[in-house]
């Protein structure tokens, strides 16, 4: 069995975290790598958008937004009826699972590139679009229809969160810079895999920290954190297949559905639902769902996409 080199960096971080190795990983480096990855993904998507812009992308985008809004509606009743969580915490966790994880997306792209599977290069647009609807649906679930984005502070946190600004900024720069983009390509594109590997090393360390938080509702949340990506990944695959995406595109839409946010949504929820227990959401999304997707989910979604598209499924 061969694992992707980038994924193995995540495993190294997990092992180091479990063994309580004190790896000196500066916070500033982690923040810089996050900034780099968000910008690089945005730039790549922007360049592809400029090349392939068409009306087809608009209706695909609308359906993807609808998909993002539907996912919390699936997660919420599970969390309430089976998890026994109160309305606020169930809504907050549901919002996390409707939104996306850019890191999971980046790993999926690295896996597809390594496997030589092509995909629609404008996918970063869908990453941006999927960040927001789940937050709004989560708020409506917690507070009712009147909540929306009524608070100015909340609207700011949601629509102008650093992650969204960097990705949208990258998309716009990539789309409008034309040929001059090549000047920054060696930095943002050629170094992408190395930066992602370092980022995942840190993510492995963070994951082990989050796991210890899964004590009170641990067993249920662990199962939920594994079930939701399988459900949402399956639905994402079907949607991607219905949208006529390539094998890589179907895989990426499954990954976007299956992943759970741990950057944009927590920031918005801190403002919108301060009474929600952030540890529960983070432990489930970062401690369970992120490693599940990286180690088992992404290869599964790729196989599912290949099976759906009727292409050769190589063992």
């Amino acid at each position, binding site marked *: *069995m061969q694992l992707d080199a980038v994924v193995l960096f995540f495993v190294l971080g997990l092992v180091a975290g479990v063994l309580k190795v004190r790896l000196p990983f500066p916070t500033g480096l982690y923040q810089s790598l996050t900034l780099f990855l968000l910008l690089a993904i945005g730039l790549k998507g922007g360049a592809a958008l400029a090349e392939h812009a068409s009306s087809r992308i608009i209706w695909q985008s609308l359906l993807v937004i609808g998909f993002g809004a539907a996912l919390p509606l699936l997660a919420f009743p*599970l969390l309430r*009826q*089976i*998890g*026994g969580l109160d309305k606020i915490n169930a809504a907050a966790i549901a919002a996390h699972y409707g939104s996306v994880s850019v890191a999971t997306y980046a790993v999926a792209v690295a896996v597809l590139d390594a496997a030589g599977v092509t995909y629609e290069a404008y996918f970063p647009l869908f990453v941006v679009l999927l960040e927001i609807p789940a937050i709004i649906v989560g708020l409506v679930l917690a507070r009712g229809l009147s909540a929306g984005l009524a608070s100015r502070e909340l609207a700011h946190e949601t629509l102008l969160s650093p992650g969204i600004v960097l990705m949208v900024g990258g998309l716009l720069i990539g789309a409008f810079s034309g040929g001059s983009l090549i000047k920054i390509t060696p930095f943002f594109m050629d170094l992408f895999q190395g930066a992602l590997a370092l980022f995942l090393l840190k993510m492995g360390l963070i994951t082990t920290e989050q796991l210890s938080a899964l*004590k*009170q509702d*641990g*067993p*249920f949340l*662990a*199962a*939920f954190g*594994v*079930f939701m990506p*399988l459900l949402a990944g399956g639905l994402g695959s079907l949607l991607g297949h219905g949208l006529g995406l390539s094998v890589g595109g179907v895989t990426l839409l499954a990954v976007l559905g299956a992943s759970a946010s741990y950057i944009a949504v927590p920031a918005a929820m801190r403002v919108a639902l301060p009474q929600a227990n952030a540890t529960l959401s983070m432990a489930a999304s970062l401690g369970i769902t992120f490693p*599940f997707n990286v*180690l*088992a989910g992404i*290869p*599964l979604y790729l*196989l599912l996409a290949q099976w759906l598209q009727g292409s050769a*499924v190589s*063992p």
Partner: protein
Amino acid sequence: MSLITRQRLFICLVALLNLALAATLYLNGHAGAPLGVIGGALLPLAWLAGRRPDTTAVSAGEGDAHAA
């Protein structure tokens, strides 16, 4: 059906789903080990559902004795 029973059934269902997926992948010549390990790890969690995290079996027994 009590909440704990629902949680235990849900955890068992997710564990079995992972084990079934792992078996399907394995039988088709793919790597099913990660899903198999996850499914196997989830099964004992069904037993843990509803138990207080900081209460060991021994202390739980003692607690019951005090209550009695």
